[in-house]
């Protein structure tokens, strides 16, 4: 019974991820016409990383929105977006990464592709995870604040230089679904590459309209995207672990969030099953609600004595089954 319940939970998470990804990118007209949604819903932020230049996106990307406000002439700090991240992070923590982030789901699905040698962790893995805090501080906050053009506006540096979600969810569908007759043609310089990119100039951000071209930046971002895709097959969620500034914000709030992992120490038999099951290479018993935990629930599912549980608040984990024989390690 408990095993069946756990299987439903595992399948349920993927269904939730698929549902959220489909719902938040459900502007089908955008895919058909190579346009993006321009309605009022885009005033609101998506809790996960979902590029607002994706043709189907109904909501704004919080990281893009944060850079837009900080990099604008009018504001140096975004109370609106920081407040949103604080509210979501304090209630859900990195449960957003495990359940609600479309790009996290894509990486998880890629990780299901069979590969001879999957890497769980490696030397330098933990220190490298600090890079996402650097991304947040330098590319999302600091550079948009200080590196402005003469008009006082700054580029969204993280989106521009790093974000593979923008390349995958924005550039690829816009290039693929744009009818050649309707769009402006972008020349690829010496390579003779011509890509239709947008139906009308008024849809394009004026700040970047004067310099659009398929050049070094495009190839750099496609290379990064290819690297993340390939790495995702070998490593569990590499972008979430090392680069995602949203994961950094939610990670900082993970230890105090309302939605949390709970451990019944009296029930735990120290079998190590949760540690072996954790894709983020954590030890849930000693690192409960760690900043790196994406609340995927894999540890909860493999616990033979239901010592671990997940939910809102600190309710005690239920003890459902007796320990299997020989389950305890020496």
């Amino acid at each position, binding site marked *: 019974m408990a095993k069946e319940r756990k299987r439903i939970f595992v399948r349920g998470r993927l269904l939730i991820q698929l549902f959220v990804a489909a719902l938040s990118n459900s502007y089908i007209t955008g895919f058909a016409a190579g346009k*993006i*949604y*321009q*309605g*009022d819903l*885009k*005033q609101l932020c998506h809790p996960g990383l979902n590029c*607002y*230049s994706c043709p189907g996106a109904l909501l*704004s*990307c919080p990281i*893009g*929105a944060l850079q*837009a*406000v900080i990099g*604008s002439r*009018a*504001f140096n700090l975004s*109370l*609106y*977006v*920081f*407040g949103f991240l*604080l*509210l979501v*992070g*304090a*209630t859900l923590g990195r449960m957003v990464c495990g359940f609600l982030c479309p790009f996290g789901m894509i990486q998880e699905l890629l990780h299901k592709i069979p590969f001879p040698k999957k890497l769980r962790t490696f030397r330098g893995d933990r220190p490298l995870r600090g890079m996402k805090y650097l991304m947040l501080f330098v590319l999302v906050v600091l550079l948009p604040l200080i590196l402005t053009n003469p008009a006082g506006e700054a*580029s*969204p540096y993280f*989106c*521009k230089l790093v*974000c593979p979600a*923008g*390349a995958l969810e*924005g*550039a690829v569908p*816009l290039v693929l679904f744009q009818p050649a007759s309707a769009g402006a043609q972008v020349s690829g310089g010496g390579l003779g590459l011509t890509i239709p*990119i*947008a139906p009308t100039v008024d*849809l*394009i*951000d*004026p700040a*970047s309209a004067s*310099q*659009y*071209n398929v050049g070094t*930046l*495009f190839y750099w*971002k*496609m290379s990064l995207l290819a690297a993340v895709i390939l790495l995702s097959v070998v490593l569990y969620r590499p972008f979430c672990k090392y680069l995602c500034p949203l994961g950094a914000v939610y990670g900082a*709030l993970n*230890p*105090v*969030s*309302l939605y949390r992992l709970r451990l019944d120490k009296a029930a735990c038999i120290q079998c190590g099953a949760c540690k072996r099951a954790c894709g983020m290479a954590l030890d849930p018993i000693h690192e409960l609600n760690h900043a790196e935990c994406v609340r995927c629930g894999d540890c909860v599912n493999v616990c033979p004595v239901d010592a671990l549980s997940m939910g809102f608040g*600190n*309710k*005690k984990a239920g003890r459902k089954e007796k320990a299997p024989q020989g389950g305890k390690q020496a």
Partner: protein
Amino acid sequence: MRKTRADRLWLPLSLAGALMIALGALRGEVAVVLNKAVRICLECIGIG
């Protein structure tokens, strides 16, 4: 299960977040977010 101070921290943080959202909306940040989000951000997708 005994509640620690950290276990209760989510509430003031959430309230602070909600307050910040309201203040941000009042001072017009929503318009900046919308203005950016309704245009194809070429830089964001690597063609800018």
